[in-house]
């Protein structure tokens, strides 16, 4: 799964505020009219982001396989009609164009997650959004990123435990209910323990956050972000 991986790539060295800004600009460009040319450009930039962060494209695809599967359902459903001719190509292509915009956005977000420490994200959020809203959002994002790998581990352990005792023979409904109940119980138990750990280590809403500094490369990326977002106004 995608998590921060220490490294020294150019994306790792960028200020997290720059990276967040780039993601925003990229999303704006992606949600503009999805012409084939624009889509191709977005894919190039998305894949370049992955490459520059040192994350293999297959890793990003593996991490987002479920999202990609759901996205693929869109064109499929759009193609189906309830009567003759049963399948129509034009709505499917239109839907494919729409959902295809999401894929390069996922690539850019994967590069961000791979190359940005969570506490840098928290610092960027708290420095960008002042006061309690920024603190709440920063802490929320930090805890979410902390929690997802733990819950995924739990899910895997529960599924293994169910399978180890022949649970695979039970109905899907039974297994789903069992796993959902257990994962909820474990999530609550983890949150209790994490809360104690946070108190023990003097949790503060406004701690000393990592130093964030813009360097020359940040200004270059910010400039590129503005140009990227401005392509919305260019007919491509």
């Amino acid at each position, binding site marked *: 799964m995608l*998590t*921060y*991986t*220490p490294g020294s790539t150019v994306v790792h060295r960028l200020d997290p505020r720059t990276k967040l800004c780039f993601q925003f600009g990229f999303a704006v460009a992606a949600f503009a009219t999805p012409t084939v040319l624009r889509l191709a450009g977005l894919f190039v930039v998305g894949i370049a982001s992955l490459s520059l962060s040192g994350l293999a494209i297959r890793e990003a695809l593996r991490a987002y396989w479920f999202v990609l599967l759901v996205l693929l359902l869109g064109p499929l459903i759009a193609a189906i009609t309830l009567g003759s001719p049963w399948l129509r190509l034009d709505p499917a292509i239109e839907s494919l164009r729409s959902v295809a915009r999401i894929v390069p956005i996922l690539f850019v977000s994967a590069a961000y997650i791979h190359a940005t*420490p*969570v*506490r840098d994200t928290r610092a960027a959020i708290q420095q960008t959004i002042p006061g309690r809203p920024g603190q709440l959002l920063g802490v929320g994002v*930090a805890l979410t*990123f*902390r929690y997802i*790998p*733990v819950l995924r581990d739990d899910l895997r352990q529960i599924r293994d435990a169910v399978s180890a005792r022949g649970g695979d023979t039970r109905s899907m409904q039974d297994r789903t209910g069992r796993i959902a109940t257990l994962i909820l119980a474990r999530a609550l138990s*983890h949150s209790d*323990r*994490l809360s*104690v*750990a*946070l*108190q*023990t*280590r*003097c*949790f*503060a809403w*406004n*701690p*000393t*956050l*990592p*130093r964030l500094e813009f360097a020359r490369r940040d200004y270059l990326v910010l400039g590129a972000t503005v140009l990227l977002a401005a392509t919305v106004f260019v007919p491509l």
Partner: protein
Amino acid sequence: MITVDNLTHFFDGEPALDGVSLTIEDGEWVLLAGPNGSGKTTLVRHFNALFEPDSGEVTVDGTPAGDDPVAARTSVGMVFQSPRDQFVAATVGADVAFGPENLGLDHDEIDRRVEAALAAVQMAGREDERIDSLSGGEQARVAIAGALAMEPDHLVLDEPFAGLDWPAQRSVLRQLDDRYAEGMSIVVVTHDVRDLLSRADSVVGLRDGSVVFDLPPEQARDRLSEIDVRTPGDSSD
């Protein structure tokens, strides 16, 4: 010094601690021994004001823990049974820095503390490593470093050897020996005193929320059977 005076704590009307009194001197190595459910973990959570007493009082360095929780939590470093529950960051350096950051220290001081804490547990230079890539023993050492970065006077470890193989246990024991030699008081919560008895200055036996004995190890040795803990020479029979 940590003093516990006639401490009582109830869970759902049932006493988890019932009139517990004890003193942990500065620089002392104390074993809190007892079976599951004897109140060991509940007791140590009072040391840094994670719980409020229903009656009685816990003071840390002369101040009631509940009056100044931050001071109590700074003075009493706590390492939990499962390091996984203690980690709040993905990398070693970020996790160890978490406590000092919360204290609002400046960056230079945070860096110094992280460096010193990691050096103390033989993890120097490994700030950028992912915690989930470490072995169980290394994770236990990072958890100790996280507590040491608060520069505590007392270090409390709740079942620190649970799930660790012998090399990892030995490694953690070495860290504790070093901290003890530096003058830090060490409190180990355990139900297995085999490798700890010879190190302790005193052993507090707990059962059903009460102190059964509080003795030097040579005297406590004969009474360990009263609290059903695993002792040197015990077999599984």
